[in-house]
């Protein structure tokens, strides 16, 4: 479980390979409908259910992974 894993989720959902750890999901064309699919993938793969607000505040793979790490002790 890593930032890189979330990079892969972004790539799949956004259908682009142009994603790195610090890419902003919304700048890459993501919208709320796609964002919730990232959240469901994180919930499936990491067992952590983040809120939509978490996503909006941390819209990069690194930012989201930090949220996941903060929730999972």
């Amino acid at each position, binding site marked *: 479980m890593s930032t890189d894993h979330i990079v892969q989720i972004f790539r799949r959902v956004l259908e682009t390979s142009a994603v790195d750890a610090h890419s902003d999901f919304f700048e890459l*064309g993501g*919208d*709320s*409908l*796609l*964002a*919730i*699919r*990232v*959240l*469901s*993938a994180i*919930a*499936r793969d990491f067992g952590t*259910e*983040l*809120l*939509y607000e978490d*996503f*909006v505040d941390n819209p990069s793979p690194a930012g989201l992974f930090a949220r996941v790490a903060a929730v999972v002790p």
Partner: protein
Amino acid sequence: MRVVVVGAGLAGLTAAVGLVAAGAEVTVLEARDRVGGRMHGIPVSTSVVADGGAAYLGVRHTELLAQVQEYGLGLASTAMAGDSTFLVSDRRRTTASRMPPLDAVALGDLFDRLEDIVASVRPDAPWQSPEAERLDRLSAARWLADEVEHPDARTFFPLFLGEMMAADPAAISVLHMAFYLRSGGGIRYLNAFEGGAQQWRIDGGAHLLCLALADRLGERVRLRQPVSAIDQDDDEVVVRCVPDVVGARSEYRADWVVVAVPPLLAQQIEFRPALRAPRATAATGRGCAVKVHLGYPAPMWRESGLSGWSVSTNGPLLSTVDDSPPDESAGVLTGFVTGAAASAFSALSTTEQRDAALAHTRQLFPLLPPPTQCRVTDWLAEKYSRGCYAALFGPGDWLRLGPTLTEPHGRVHWAGTETSLEFFGLMEGAIRSGRRVATELINGAESAAASRKVLSR
């Protein structure tokens, strides 16, 4: 070549203009006293006309954009600023995003499942998709009950299908749902305003396009001519009308007929010889959409930082959109009553409809004064549309109707947005079907051979 086009909606008018350009002698028969079909202007103030029916378009609607340009019409952006309003189980909230205050992970999971099904459909022949038989038999409501557990996802699903395709999940097959979402460009494109299928409106109303097409056709368009029967033999076709007004029944003779009306209406026409394949079945439903237009002196919700966009988990107004004119000379909120809520709303009296819509609006936007106008456009009750946005293919319909959607019945050819596998149910699909059918007739040799085949059986 003499051609009678039945139906002066966007598909029929597009076909007629194309056929006239190719030198055909064309008559367009329209049942109503107006052209446009499911595109209809509704005055909401002395100077502003709202879209009672089809309204929105996006960059992928290339044929529609070409017509808009050709006829000198303008586009109005739907871009909105401000907060969304949500009424979830009667609790009101406003948020900066368009995401309803429901469990995001559960909704994401729902859309993952939907994406998988949409991706599995063959857009060029949905009836040949993998598992087509199973998906055609299964209703979308049954699919939800089997696949999705979270209450928030179950709450959101009918709202989503209502908004996307004016469907009650119980009334459509999973195959129809998946095909429709795919045909319109995928869930994300179909759902989006900016960058999606709702990027613009036609400035002044989408009906202006139909008026422009009809204007080009001039006296070829005959209003108040509901078609009741179409007879054909080796030599010609006779189209029989029963005008609404008392008077002699009229007949129109032609070499070819284009039927460009929704499937439920096409199915009501008496064909001799009879149709070999139906246009609609007992499972085929009406698109369940009622639009409520609320007129204000200005888009006043913007002053309090609201976009006018709302979603409610209970009806009647399951969503609202700011459809005000670009010059802000009036405020127009369009309320969408869709799916099962539309059927219930349609059964109310005019007064009850108005009271329910106004009460809901007060709940959504308590700071707004009462609207100066409240206009209800009930497509379920429209005799000559039988629903809107488009026909709903119920369980079994795609396998039964799909393979023959565009197959001519002798001298009778088919158009209408429900005959277009591309952008099915949208204005773009209507235009593409009209162009396709005009091309079929212009390259008529093939069809002539086919017609003899039908009649000799």
